[in-house]
């Protein structure tokens, strides 16, 4: 095999000189050794660096004899099959494989790699030596993150607000929706429409409107008469001024004293004297004595309780005579079923909510002992309670029947009526007249005895009636009711206390005793908002409500 070995030398400005040599053999050895067919003096070349073998058809096999490999067409390889035209780089030399010609079976062109090219090549293969040269970037991730945060946390929630149905779609995906805007947990009561932000936030970039609240809270009373008390604190305050949601379990309902005390400390001044409420600042330090709704009746008999300040000498007109001390004697009372010891719960039972006491009921609580019997011969018969006309009828009918039947066991009765009548024997007209007269007299007499003597007047104030239909008048009665209508008191939450801790009933000898605890009694356990030693912190809201006037809320409805 004839090899053409051509050495090309470039001498600046396009001057090129060739030096040709011939080599015989199948393989062409390349290296720094003297025995090499192609001798390269570069120190970077091994003594035996590479071998090129002719495969025919202008193809060559190139073998690297060094473990580092050689660069063939830009790639470092140990062995490769290369076509004519391929470039092999060894040290600073470039070898181009030539196609076979008529004169040579194989050929190679050797030239030095241009210095600039070499430098460019070195620069190309140079490893990055600073982070700026690596794939790391600050600009691209910055843009991506900026766009991502704006799209995910601003764009999507806004789309959910403006475009109907988007929210539902987003909720079904892991993508953030308006829940990503949730600034805090909703109050428990608002959870059932929690994901529908627009129920409260009807307009973007606006405060929550009162009308949004009133969509549900329509029946909420105002704090005071909005016409009489046209105060900016009441009229201009938005619902959300006090009711701040998104604060979890706290926050929605204000319980701080400032809510009330801000106005109520100087209420008479700020209302121009319109308010008849006493100034109040703190339950512990600055609260007037309680006012009670004292039972009273107007001329027509209608119940019109009077609001009176509680004091030791205040008497109650309950319309009833009831000495608590006599009923609460420790050794008990004689009753039809024997001896019975009464306590508070014998008569005072709480209502279903446990907050207030049910009214005392005569039939349930009193009649056991205070039986309304009226005739010794019939000890089981009693007159009905409280219904005066029925009592009169009952007595009339009872004694008329007795008189007509005859056989009355009463020495004062006329002789014919005391005789027992035989069955089937009709009374004579004279006997009937006699019986009716006696029965009427007897009924009146027993009635008088009941009303003024042994039954009604035991407990009630009884006076003669004005008309024939109403022979007796019993004073109206109110035994149990709401004494403190402006505050909330819950017996159940005070269930760990004894009744006598607040109600000194065992020493009460008359029903005119009020037996209601005054503010000093409450202050034994309850301090003001700041609390106190061994006392509860009790702000205004502990007993009073805000939305409790009979007037409806006036709000900025459109």
């Amino acid at each position, binding site marked *: 095999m004839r090899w053409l070995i051509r050495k090309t030398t470039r001498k600046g400005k396009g001057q090129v000189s060739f030096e040709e040599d011939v080599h015989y053999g199948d393989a062409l050895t390349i290296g720094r050794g003297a025995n090499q067919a192609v001798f390269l003096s570069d120190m970077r070349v091994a003594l035996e660096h590479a071998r090129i073998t002719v495969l025919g058809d202008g193809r060559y096999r190139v073998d690297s004899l060094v473990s580092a490999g050689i660069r063939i067409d830009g790639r470092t390889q140990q062995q490769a099959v290369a076509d004519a035209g391929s470039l092999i780089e060894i040290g600073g030399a470039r070898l181009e494989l030539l196609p076979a010609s008529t004169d040579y079976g194989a050929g190679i062109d050797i030239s030095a790699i241009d210095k600039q090219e070499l430098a460019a090549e070195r620069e190309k293969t*140079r490893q990055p030596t600073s982070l700026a*040269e690596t794939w790391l970037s600050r600009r691209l991730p910055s*843009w991506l993150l900026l766009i991502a945060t704006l799209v995910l946390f601003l764009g999507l929630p806004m789309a959910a607000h403006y475009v109907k149905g988007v929210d539902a779609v987003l909720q079904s995906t892991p993508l953030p929706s*308006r829940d990503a805007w*949730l600034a805090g947990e909703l109050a428990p009561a608002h959870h059932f429409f929690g994901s529908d932000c627009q129920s409260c936030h009807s307009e973007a970039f606006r405060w929550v409107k009162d009308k949004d609240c009133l969509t549900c809270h329509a029946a909420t009373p105002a704090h005071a008469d909005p016409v009489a008390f046209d105060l900016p604190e009441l009229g201009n305050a938005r619902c959300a001024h006090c009711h701040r949601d998104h604060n979890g379990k706290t*926050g929605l309902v204000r319980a*701080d004293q400032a809510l009330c005390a801000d106005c109520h400390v100087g209420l008479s001044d700020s209302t121009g004297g319109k308010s008849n409420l006493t100034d109040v600042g703190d339950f512990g330090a600055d609260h007037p004595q309680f006012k009670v709704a004292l039972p009273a009746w107007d001329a027509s008999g209608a119940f019109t309780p009077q609001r009176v300040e509680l004091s030791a000498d205040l008497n109650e007109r309950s319309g009833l005579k009831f000495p608590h001390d006599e009923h609460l004697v420790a050794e008990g009372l004689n009753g039809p079923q024997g001896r019975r010891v009464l306590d508070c719960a014998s008569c005072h039972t709480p209502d279903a909510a446990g907050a207030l006491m049910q009214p005392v009921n005569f039939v349930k609580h009193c009649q056991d002992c205070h039986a309304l019997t009226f005739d010794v011969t019939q000890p089981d018969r009693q007159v009905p309670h409280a219904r005066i006309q029925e009592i009169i009828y009952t007595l009339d009918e009872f004694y008329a029947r007795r008189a007509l039947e005859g056989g009355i066991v009463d020495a004062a009765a006329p002789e014919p009526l005391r005789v027992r009548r035989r069955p089937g024997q009709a009374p004579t007209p004279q006997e009937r007249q006699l019986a009716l007269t006696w029965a009427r007299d007897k009924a009146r007499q027993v009635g008088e005895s009941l009303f003024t003597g042994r039954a009604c007047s035991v407990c009630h104030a009884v006076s003669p009636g004005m008309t024939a239909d109403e022979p007796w008048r019993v004073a109206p009665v109110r035994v149990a009711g709401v004494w403190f209508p402006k505050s909330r008191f819950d017996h159940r939450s005070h269930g760990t206390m004894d009744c006598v801790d607040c109600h000194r009933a065992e020493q009460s000898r008359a029903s005119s005793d009020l037996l209601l605890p005054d503010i000093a009694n409450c202050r034994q356990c309850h301090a003001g908002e700041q609390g106190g030693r061994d006392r509860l912190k009790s702000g205004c809201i502990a007993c009073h409500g805000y939305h409790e006037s009979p007037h409806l809320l006036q709000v900025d409805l459109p």
Partner: protein
Amino acid sequence: MHDSILSFKRQRYLWVAFLLCLASLVAYFWHQPVGAPPNGGTWLGYTLGGIGATLILWLLWFGIRKRRYRSGVGTLRGWLSAHVYLGSSLILIVLLHSGFQVGWNVHTLALTLMLLVIFSGFFGVFAYLRYPALMTRNRDNATRDAMIEEIADLDQAALQLADAVDPAIHAIVLRSIERTVLGGGVWAQLTARDGSAEALENLRQAASSKEKGGDKAAPAANRGQTMIVMVDFLAGQTKSDKQSENLRKLIDLMTRKKVLAERVARDIQLQALMEIWLYVHVPLSIALLGALIAHVVSVLFYW
């Protein structure tokens, strides 16, 4: 005396930040919001939030200010000092603004991003204070380019020396040169893998194999390591006294080269460590800008 970013003008901005934090704390404990726990919706919450947002925007402005070489508003070092101290004060101010309430929402996202930015900045402060001194010491009065040039010279000298010893040694030295890699990808730069530990281990192995009279180091030439392989080979294949002399010189050269290569790798590593945190700090701060906009707009959107 050198005035570092932390001690700039007698820690002027440390005091500014300290006073800002103190004022925020006093206000936070003095303020008793009605009807709700402390939160961003009270007047103090809005105030602290306004201060925090303004600070964040101002801190972001640093990225623009530091490129304005002709700006006359303070020195860049003063700006950086303020950037560090006021940026740190944000941790407290923003936590007070939030009333320490967190949740799965854009608000806490902004808080989290802000904390990540600040803590990555803390690493930056550490890097700027510590690494320049380490770099100076590591370079030992040379520059990186000078060291790289010297490595090239050593390579050339080593090749000539190796040629005088043995063709096989020459091949290995050549291979070592071609495989010597300075720099590389992110991980390679940050870890500065110079293989010195492995080289020591290989040296030890080669030495012990020589003691046993074996000649087992040669196969290591295929293991793809560079100078380490050289050392192995040299330790295992000495043949004559003359060669030994040349080999010793070669080893000296290669040791010198190894030291230089390690130093360059360390230089690259230190520089990379000084820069790497910025690739977290800057993108996250821009993400924070997005989250901050979303946070502010969302709060005002559903006021």
